[in-house]
């Protein structure tokens, strides 16, 4: 058994710095590269892409990335775990295979494919059998939005990926898998942890939480002494050095920017935290109140003491459904009386929307530069505020009404208060809202499938 393995975080979300995973592979030693591509509503975007093109529906960026790093991964013996498969894991795998052929790497490695997360075809069966898939936030049964559902996927944990690695996969591609599982799976595979070794599984899970948002643990978005953070232009993404006993060190490649310090790790630990005693995953319940941190050197923070408990009997389901339309219009008002003018323009706009008889579920006005993000906490605006952006957003079930709203923004320039600009982008775009419906499903309903392909 290896004394330790290095697992590198390469993407914090779909659209993160494209070069980050390449640099993780090239700029220092790593054993694993984990790539998280799936945000909550990404699956529905991919579902839409697939409905137009049956070969689409996965993170295409991943295939481009494989073209760049596959030779190095084979040469340096680096394995990859990625939930890049979206709603078409097989399609993603086929694309990676053809890249392997192009690069002359056919037959040089195995691809592992994890499926079984897609429960869209089974929803009516579940509902008929009394599995209501109630919304975890609102407690409504899924039946209330049944006809508007676009995708439904279970979050799979680490174990199917472990099986793929155990069967020799170098590149493991999943659909909807937890981001923490992408980091935990290599540890279980390398160190042979048992399925009820809750403390170690919790350690690997928390390691995953620390690197799943990319550089957000290594200096990005770090409030602590932010002016002192070295060279963010060249920020190094985080790396976990995991030991068989479950302890690990968070670090990054030498020579890169950013920093790995206890405050940067603490900030990431509390990010998107619920009850810290109960961080629920398919693999275990991790207790964040047991995490201990200490320095082990420059840009090296040791993490230990983590305790966990048995996983629950449920898996989380990520369901997306169509929830109407929205659009956002903006204009910029300049000194003098910038805020007053923006407020006047908002009143004029709302009067016109009323006169047109347009109905929306919500109309929201924000004044960027005054109170858009801190609301009433921002205090009174200065009369001398140099400029204010008026930002009006509407949402409703009727596309035509939202469309009509978008035609009322630019005319304010010639028909409203003076000193205004910022309409060059033309009419705002109408966007279909794909909303997120979190639910739980009994674990025994779900059987993950693992397939190994000789690339």
């Amino acid at each position, binding site marked *: 058994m290896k004394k330790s393995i290095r697992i590198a975080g390469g993407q914090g979300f779909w659209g993160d710095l494209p070069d980050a995973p390449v640099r993780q592979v090239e700029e220092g030693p790593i054993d694993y590269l984990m790539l998280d591509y799936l945000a*909550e*509503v990404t699956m529905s975007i991919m579902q839409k892409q697939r409905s137009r093109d049956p070969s689409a529906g996965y993170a295409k960026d991943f295939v481009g990335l494989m073209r760049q790093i596959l030779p190095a991964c084979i040469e340096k013996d680096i394995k990859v775990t990625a939930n890049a498969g979206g709603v078409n894991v097989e399609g993603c795998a086929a694309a990676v295979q053809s890249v392997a052929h192009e690069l002359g790497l056919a037959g040089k490695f195995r691809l592992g494919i994890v499926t079984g997360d897609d429960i869209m075809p089974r929803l009516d069966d579940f509902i008929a059998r009394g599995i209501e898939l109630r919304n*975890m*936030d609102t407690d409504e049964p899924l039946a209330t939005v049944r006809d508007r559902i676009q995708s439904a996927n279970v979050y799979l944990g680490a174990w199917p990926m472990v099986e793929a690695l155990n069967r020799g996969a170098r590149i493991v591609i999943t659909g909807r898998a937890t981001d923490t599982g992408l980091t935990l799976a290599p540890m279980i595979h390398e160190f042979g942890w048992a399925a009820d070794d809750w403390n170690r599984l919790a350690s690997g899970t928390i390691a995953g939480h620390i690197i799943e948002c990319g550089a957000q643990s290594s200096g990005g*978005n770090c*409030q*602590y002494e932010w002016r002192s953070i070295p060279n963010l232009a060249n920020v190094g993404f985080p790396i976990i050095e995991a030991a068989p006993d479950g302890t690990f060190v968070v670090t990054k490649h030498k020579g890169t920017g950013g920093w790995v310090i206890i*405050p940067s790790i*603490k*900030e*990431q*630990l*509390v*990010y*998107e*935290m*619920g*009850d*810290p*005693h109960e961080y629920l995953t398919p693999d275990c319940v991790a207790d*964040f*109140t*047991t*995490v*201990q*941190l200490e320095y082990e050197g420059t840009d090296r923070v040791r993490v230990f*003491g983590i305790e966990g408990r048995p996983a629950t009997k449920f898996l989380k389901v990520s369901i997306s459904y169509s*929830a109407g339309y*929205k659009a*956002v219009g903006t204009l910029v008002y300049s000194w003098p009386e910038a805020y007053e003018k923006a407020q006047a323009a908002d009143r004029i706009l709302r009067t016109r929307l009323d006169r047109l008889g347009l109905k929306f579920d*919500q109309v*929201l006005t*924000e004044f*960027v530069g005054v109170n*858009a*993000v*801190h*609301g*009433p*906490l921002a205090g009174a605006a200065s009369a001398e505020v140099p400029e204010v952006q008026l*930002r009006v*957003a*509407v*949402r409703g079930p009727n596309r035509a009404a939202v469309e009509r709203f978008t035609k009322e923004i630019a005319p304010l320039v010639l028909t409203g208060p003076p000193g205004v600009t910022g309409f060059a982008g033309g009419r705002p775009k109408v966007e279909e*809202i*794909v*909303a*997120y419906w*979190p639910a739980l499903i009994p674990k025994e309903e779900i059987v993950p499938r693992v397939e190994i392909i000789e690339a």
Partner: protein
Amino acid sequence: MRIQLLKLAHARSGDKGDTANVGLIALEDKYYPMLVREVTVERVKEHFRGICKGKVERFELPNLGALNFLLHESLGGGGTLSLMTDAQGKTFSTAILRMEIELPDAEAQALGLMI
């Protein structure tokens, strides 16, 4: 003396649906007991009046010198439904640092906060 949390803590915030989470971390371990005592559920609910429409929950992480707050019904429906600029609640972290707490002068002195 009155002192702003900005001088005592750093923070990170995020979202889970329509709930914002705000992790408040003591800049120095010795400030943590004071945060536990002063930054109560009631104070946070009052601080975010007009922003947080639901209940506030608080969890203690003494191992990190941190408090985690859940601010329910704060993100205009949350996720893609929200029309807010900050639909993900990312700036709730800096918003909480605006809060001011009252400290006995003796305590402030002992913590090295009196200038």
